[in-house]
């Protein structure tokens, strides 16, 4: 199968590399979870993929095309994202926010055509946010906001979605709902997803593969079972010897139960 996005020996960071020699590739419909301790460079990796930061080294290929050679517009039609930073738009309804996803497809003045409006409504329907359609974005709950941002990302009709800790700030029901939604969308629409996530207990249920970064430029890539092991957790999160095993045992038992919920 063709690789939707491929990272080749990628080094990212602000001045000095935080993550080095990162290589993996994601196929359409696959979900990769990016895990690691705080400050290990998860967001830095995602920001580099979405070109908010310059690469230090290495290459990113999108459908075999070198990302650095692609125009802003053509990238916008392929990659969409949901970031952790909250946005503070003024006087914008949730419909308006989702509609900004149509940006790469509208004309010079950005006016929405009927088909654009239909796509906006469809995306809102997909995430189940009809109730807040006409509400002011700044006046809805965090959980609803994340759904709206996800609808915005869907509305951009991406082949690749980059999600930076989409479940942070949400209560447990919203977390489960959002993860189920991401999984469904990825499979139904064949979207390659790379998402960073803190809650390890959700990883086996949602991710096809796991990429772990440890902040010391070490990278592990593999299936959830391969990566989430006691030994790895101790290394990644600087845990005391022996405690990793206990953590993973609990995590795996919990995640088995969760799988039926996502």
């Amino acid at each position, binding site marked *: 199968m063709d690789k939707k996005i491929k990272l080749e020996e990628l080094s990212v960071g602000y001045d000095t590399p935080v993550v080095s020699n990162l290589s993996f590739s994601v196929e359409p419909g696959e979900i990769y979870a990016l895990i690691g301790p705080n400050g290990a460079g998860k967001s830095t990796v995602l920001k580099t993929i*979405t070109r908010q930061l310059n690469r230090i080294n290495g290459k990113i290929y999108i459908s075999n095309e070198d990302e650095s050679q692609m125009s802003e517009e053509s990238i*916008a039609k392929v990659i969409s*994202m949901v970031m952790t930073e909250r946005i503070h738009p*003024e006087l914008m309804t949730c419909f308006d926010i989702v509609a*900004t996803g149509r*940006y*790469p497809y509208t004309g*010079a003045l950005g006016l929405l055509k009927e088909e654009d409006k239909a796509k906006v409504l469809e995306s809102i329907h997909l995430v189940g946010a009809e109730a807040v359609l006409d509400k002011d974005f700044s006046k809805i709950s965090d959980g609803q906001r994340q759904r709206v941002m996800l609808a915005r990302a869907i509305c*951009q009709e991406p082949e690749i979605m980059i999600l930076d800790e989409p479940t942070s700030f949400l209560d447990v029901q919203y977390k489960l709902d959002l993860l189920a939604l991401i999984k469904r969308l990825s499979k139904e629409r064949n979207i390659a997803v790379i998402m960073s996530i803190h809650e390890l207990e959700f990883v086996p249920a949602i991710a096809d593969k796991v990429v772990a970064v440890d902040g010391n430029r070490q990278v592990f890539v593999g299936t959830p079972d391969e990566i989430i092991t006691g030994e790895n957790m101790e290394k990644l999160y600087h845990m005391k010897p022996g405690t990793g095993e206990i953590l993973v045992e609990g995590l795996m038992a919990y995640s088995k139960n969760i799988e039926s919920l996502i």
Partner: protein
Amino acid sequence: MKKRNYTLIFILMILVLMGLALASLAMGSADISPGEIISSLTSSEDDYYSKILITIRMPRILAAIILGGALAVSGFLLQIFFGNPIAGPYVLGISSGAKLFVALLMVFLLGKGIYINSLGMVFAAFLGSLLAMGAVLLMSQKVRNMSLLIVCGVMIGYICSAITEFVVTFAEDSNIVNLHNWSLGSFSGISSGQVMFSFVLVTITVIVSFFMSKPIGAYQLGEAYARNMGVNVKVLRGILILLSSLLSATVTAFAGPISFVGIAVPHIMRSLFKTAKPIVMIPACFIGGGIITLACDDVARTAFAPTEMSISAVTALFLAPVVIYLLIKRKEMQRG
């Protein structure tokens, strides 16, 4: 809000603007009734009234509309740039930077007996605007808090105004009297040539801004999302600075610094239209800025006639409370 409602508000605003412009023609130390206005404007005779109307009142009214509109659009663009509704060319010291450069150029050239044309004035003002903007940008990298940044902007404004005062005080020329009035902000004595020049410049700049509505709208979601939508953020930021500086420079070159229109009008328009979409806000700010500035200028020239107040005194009186309201509301939102 539906498109129909936007259109309705726009039509109403244009009617208000036209009505106000006609009323302003009738206002002034020489009492001219509406009937006399029509008859003297339609007759080909070059009588006393038509002279007052055409050479004094008309250019002044047009200047207040065009330059007031320009100031409001400039403020709106700056607010987008800083992602903050409390930005404006006056509070950020940009108008004062423009004022300083125009004063320096005028004093220098008048001293040598050289007459400066409109282009030269706007160019000097534009340079001053950009320099003050550069200083604000440098500070904005250190000061993340917008309220503090505004305090810094106000300080830049004070420094520029102080230097302007020095220059004006020590320059020896009878024309300095003019310069003094201008440095406080005034539409009085603006020539039809200057009005024509600013009309062309402001129209072009506002139209360019209008056609930038799409990327500006994307930028309202923040830099990261704008970039993800395919906007070249660096280029957009540069364009925003150039357009807003050019607009406020044109205003300062011909009417001096005018306070608070740049902050307050965009806010009033957002409340009126219940949207912040640039495609609506840019024309709305232009017309709204015209209405409010013209109304303030009418007050400035008629309230204590024949003595004139500076336009900034009037705009400050009416619009500074709006700015205070915005500051308080923002603080409350941060707490909430």
